[in-house]
């Protein structure tokens, strides 16, 4: 068994993986006939170069923190929840139903209602694949993929046939009542006298996401349930032998995972759009996979990776505007390369790095013990 120092595992290897993804992306940009350096500069300027840019970057990052945490929690139990997209879509439905049910007097009431509704709907959508995995042994990856498609069909049906205004052509709900409006960064920073641009959609869901990340850290590393989840993830056999019920762990892990994915809707549906539109998730459920992989399923890593992908999404918009030769899908390519290098091809970097550390370790030991190692 090769031992790699923790810092290499959580910092060095992800950075090498990321560098490889960036390098290949640079080659793609070169092929298109643009300068990768200029593209990088535009991307950084557009994503973190101003308060306005930060406002958008952090808005996207908020979505990705939720979906990234959702994937990460499931990873700890060695479950691959690929259904974040569908769970987040259902979360949006939950938010929309609750927000339109009542003329909300104040956001302080509408926010908890939105959180509960989105978490509940997201968890419910994860519950069926979870139950099928726990009780019937159906592979959760396949069922969650199927549930993404079922969710998408369900939402189209509901929006077209029931939720849209009869007078409206576009399949979307009417705007939520004004009381459901969540404070944006502009308003919140205004309370303490800090000026922040008005248009970026980053809102109170960002601190909520950070809280959720903290809660996940407490859950996984500081509670009995978290211990059981990790034990189950390391070895189902051993966990079972230790008296841990696989059914209970699978169900609870997936409910938490689904709830986290669903809560993305607090940011995107209640916070930004303030109505439910078709495809409100916009791929954020899948970005969560990349975020969880990059962040090594640790909440701090997830937050950092989510900000990175937020930069990519916001910077990508600017990139398309400034350099029209590069289309917006460049960010999908980068995202794919990040998933490829940090997830699928991880061993390509890990094995050589492991050998390197073994060699260093051996020569260190030799020096220490006089050549007995």
């Amino acid at each position, binding site marked *: 068994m090769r031992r790699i120092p923790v810092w290499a595992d959580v910092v060095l290897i992800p950075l090498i993986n990321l560098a490889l993804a960036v390098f290949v992306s640079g080659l*793609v940009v070169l092929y*298109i*006939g643009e300068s990768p350096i200029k593209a990088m500069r535009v991307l950084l300027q557009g994503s973190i170069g101003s308060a306005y840019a930060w406002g958008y970057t952090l808005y996207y990052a908020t979505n990705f923190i939720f979906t990234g945490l959702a994937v990460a929690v499931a990873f700890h139990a060695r479950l*691959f929840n*690929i259904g974040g997209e569908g769970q987040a879509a259902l979360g949006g439905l939950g938010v929309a139903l609750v927000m339109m049910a009542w003329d909300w007097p104040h956001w302080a009431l509408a926010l908890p209602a939105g959180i509960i509704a989105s978490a509940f709907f997201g968890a419910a959508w994860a519950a*069926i*694949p979870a139950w*099928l995995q726990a009780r*019937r*042994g*159906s*592979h959760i*990856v*396949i*069922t969650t*993929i*199927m*549930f993404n*498609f*079922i969710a998408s*069909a*369900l939402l*189209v*049906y509901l929006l*077209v*046939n029931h939720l849209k205004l009869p007078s409206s052509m576009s399949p979307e709900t009417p705007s939520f009542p004004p009381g459901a409006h969540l404070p944006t960064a502009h308003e919140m920073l205004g309370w303490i006298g800090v000026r922040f641009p008005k248009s970026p959609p980053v809102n109170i869901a960002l601190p909520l996401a950070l809280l959720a990340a903290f809660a996940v850290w407490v859950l996984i590393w500081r509670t009995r349930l978290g211990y059981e989840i990790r034990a189950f993830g390391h070895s189902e056999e051993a966990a079972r032998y230790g008296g841990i019920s696989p059914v209970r762990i699978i169900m609870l892990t997936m409910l938490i995972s689904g709830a986290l994915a669903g809560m993305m809707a607090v940011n995107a549906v209640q916070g930004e759009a303030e109505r439910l539109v078709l495809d409100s998730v916009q791929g954020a459920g*899948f970005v969560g*996979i990349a975020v969880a*992989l990059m962040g090594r399923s640790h909440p701090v890593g997830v937050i950092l990776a989510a900000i990175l992908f937020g930069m990519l999404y916001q910077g990508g918009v600017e990139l398309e505007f400034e350099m029209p*030769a*590069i*289309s*917006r*899908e*460049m*960010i*999908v*390519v*980068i*995202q*794919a*390369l990040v*998933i*490829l290098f940090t*997830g*699928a*091809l*991880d*061993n*390509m970097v890990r*094995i050589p790095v492991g050998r390197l550390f073994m060699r260093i370790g051996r020569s260190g030991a030799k020096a220490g013990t006089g050549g007995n190692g």
Partner: protein
Amino acid sequence: MDLDIVLQLADSTIRLATPLLLACLAGLYSERSGVFDIGLEGKMLIAAFFAAATAAVTGSAWTGLAAGLAASLVFSMLHAVASITFRGNQLISGVAINFLAVGMTALLGHTWFRQGGQTPQLVGAARFHAIDLPGAAALADVPVIGPIYAEVISGHSVLVYIAFLTVPLTWWVLYRTRFGLRLRAVGENPAAVDTAGISVPLLRYQALVITGILCGIAGAYLSTSMNAGFVREMTAGKGFIALAALIFAKWRPWPALFATLLFGLLEAVGIRFQNVEIAGIGTIPVQFMQALPYILTVVILAGFVGKAVPPRAGGEPYVKEE
């Protein structure tokens, strides 16, 4: 419903089932060898793009097909390197491949053609056209059999016939050849295959080559036969329906044919009737028809109607004992 509508439905069922069938059989080889493949969608998409782009430039559908095959093979080998050589997570590799295909096709389409990610409209020899089977015109007037032969069986492009011939071929390869026996064994018990002195990685690489080829044909069919060019994300979940059909068919070739025909029929009915009215139940919305393949797969997976058990070694990288 009169005969005409039935014939039309049968005809479009075959058209719509063809890409599903090819992708489904592609997945069959990969998964039977013990490598999960949720990247069928991506391989079809990249093949569809390269086939249409090459056909548009060269004016030849066959050159397009070759380019599509090559593109799909490259992606399939990427999956092989990640999941066989580097023993990475096969599901994550599949996810990466799907995104890579979505991004690359849009990006290259934008760079090469500047038509919003589309390829130019394919005309003439750049497209696979319907071929009339011998005697179709002569038999058309024979009652019942004539119209079925002339309208349903005859009059598809050559890729459709290739797809349907791949079913008996796959059956033969799988159950009547030494390669097929080894392929089935390596998906169930790679250690036993290894003990017999056969290379597990080599077998799996071979399986993934076949997967790449079949996905390539499926993609080329979409953009150069069923449609006259590539549009963005034109696979639209077909790779996942094929995956569903594969589970539905319990990883066997003949049931794969019936499963893909069933899913093709569902799509054809959905397109033809939009909202289906069934007496006593009311109107079934078109979205339900679209979701039905996925719902059926979940039901099958749950084992309520005949349990689907995947190849035992599926998804597990093989580590040789030392």
